[in-house]
């Protein structure tokens, strides 16, 4: 039997398949090249495996929760670890609303910054300013949180929120007790954090718009601003991509929001009220989760976060790439 098997697989075949692989790995026939390629391909494969492992691990550990709650996990409002009732709606609401507040503030701000840096500021001024704006992105989330608790939240409580309540108090958005800790503060801190990201991508997008567009507009007698509008229209998909990229960042931002949003799982129309986000409930409760189903529910929140940011980032990158591919060929690292 053994001899027969051996006979079916003559050593010649083995060596020829080895040669085949060596050829594939190294068209030049150099042994060093083959090893080098195998190593580099191995590292690249590792990246693919890591992303795959992330999806598998998150899905596997959320399985108990998915089985038990099904779709009602997303639509359920109750979050009660003691009764083992888990519904994520309050966290989804808090995440969406705080991210939207962040975008409402940071999109015009970022556009203004990017336009100023690309279209108006002289090069000698634009470079140091770009560095300063990007330093905002270098400040860690936990530092924003610390500053948010002790500086921003009191400032909003004393000056901004009472004013909003006085002028726009007829809107349900600006009613209720003013504490300085809540959705609005979370949104404002997120706005500060995503502004450097959005403005830096918009800057790349605007810089990629060909100068002929500007020259044509100016030659037709357009003012400085009308020329800028032409540039903005040209870069529109990329700008949309930048905004979506900022949205992705805001959705996943954890520490700063956790520290100022109040961490109460409730759905309230008022922006002054405490709220809770997907990321912050994971940060707060993960180490306390003793019951398996509790932990599994938290992992499922992580899975939701993963999938949402995955889609959001993919869409954003395609949009930005459409505008910038002509000039750089390589995307941006943000």
């Amino acid at each position: 039997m053994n001899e027969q098997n051996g006979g079916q697989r003559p050593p010649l075949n083995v060596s020829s398949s080895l040669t085949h692989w060596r050829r594939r790995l190294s068209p030049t026939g150099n042994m060093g090249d083959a090893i080098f390629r195998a190593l580099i391909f191995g590292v690249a494969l590792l990246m693919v495996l890591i992303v795959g492992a992330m999806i598998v691990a998150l899905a596997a550990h959320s399985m108990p929760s998915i089985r038990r709650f099904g779709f009602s996990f997303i639509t359920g409002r109750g979050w009660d670890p003691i009764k083992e009732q888990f519904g994520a709606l309050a966290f989804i609401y808090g995440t969406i609303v705080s991210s939207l507040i962040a975008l409402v503030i940071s999109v015009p701000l970022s556009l203004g910054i990017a336009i100023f840096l690309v279209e108006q500021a002289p090069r000698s001024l634009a470079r140091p300013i770009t560095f300063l704006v990007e330093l905002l992105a270098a400040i860690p989330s936990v530092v924003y949180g610390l500053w948010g608790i002790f500086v921003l939240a009191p400032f909003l409580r004393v000056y901004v929120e009472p004013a909003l309540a006085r002028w726009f108090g007829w809107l349900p958005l600006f009613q209720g007790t003013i504490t300085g800790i809540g959705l609005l503060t979370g949104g404002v801190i997120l706005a500060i954090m995503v502004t450097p990201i959005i403005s830096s991508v918009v800057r790349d997008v605007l810089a990629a718009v060909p100068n002929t567009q500007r020259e044509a507009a100016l030659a037709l007698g357009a003012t400085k601003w009308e020329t800028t509008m032409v540039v903005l229209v040209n870069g529109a998909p990329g700008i949309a991509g930048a905004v979506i990229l900022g949205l992705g960042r805001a959705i996943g931002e954890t520490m700063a929001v956790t520290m100022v949003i109040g961490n109460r799982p409730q759905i309230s129309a008022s922006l002054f009220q405490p709220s809770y986000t997907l990321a912050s409930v994971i940060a707060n409760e993960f180490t306390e989760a003793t019951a398996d189903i509790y932990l599994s529910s938290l992992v499922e929140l992580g899975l939701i976060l993963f999938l949402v940011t995955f889609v959001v980032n993919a869409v954003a990158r395609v949009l930005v790439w459409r505008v910038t591919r002509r000039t750089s060929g390589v995307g941006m690292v943000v």
Partner: protein
Amino acid sequence: MRTLSRTDRSRRAVSALLTTLTALCTLLAISILAIILSYIAMRGVAAINFRFLIDSPRPVGEGGGIGNAIVGSAVLLLLSCIVGIPAGIGTGVYLSEFGGGYVGSIVRFLVDTLTGIPSIVTGVFVYAVVVLRMKHFSGLAGGIALALIMVPIVARTTEEMIRLVPHSLREGALALGAPQWRVTLGVVIPAAGSGIATGAMLAVARVSGETAPLLFTAFGSRFFPRNLNEPIASLTVQIYYYAISPYDEWHAQAWAATLVLMALILSINIAVRFLTRKKFG
């Protein structure tokens, strides 16, 4: 001289107004930066002293410091560099040298995806695959979590820097008869070296501020680290717990620890800026 019609005048006024507004947006962003940094400087300097830098935490009212957190952060960063920088450079080399085809764009997309994944999710992943398996929090798990965040940043800057290396260098080396691995390792990577190094530095700056992925991997500790197999303190987690505590003394310590952290991050960023000033716009 031609007199301006009414519409012309209003067009010019709108243009002037809106261009001024963009300058104000920029000014606002820079003022926020200045306000944040000056708060950190003021509150931090008021609370910091030498003992604070070398002591370990103590109960409220007894002082204590962040010595263990500084050492812990250093250990975590070192560990993440050992794992993350070679893996990142390897992936970057793959993307630039072999990543032209279909598979290359998939890898590039996945690397970009990794960049966009919220760091808290990375923490949950490492908890599931490392902490649950080891059955306890550890410095090792924390280092792995930070490395996972580092890899895509290093990979993409490496790719971009290698692409800036002129093709004539490669062709010259190949023409001299060097095999491809020697061309890449001996000519291309050294030529892109300073760019790759600054990319790695920026990645270090980025992960040194990470808190969320450490909360349930490295966890935190009140003692100096002895080995990688036990929970380990870090500056950021320490800042977090002090900031949300109800004690004024711990709040002051949070500001002082933030000053230390920001000194590290700002000096890396400023160093990178001076290193890259001449070569790249």
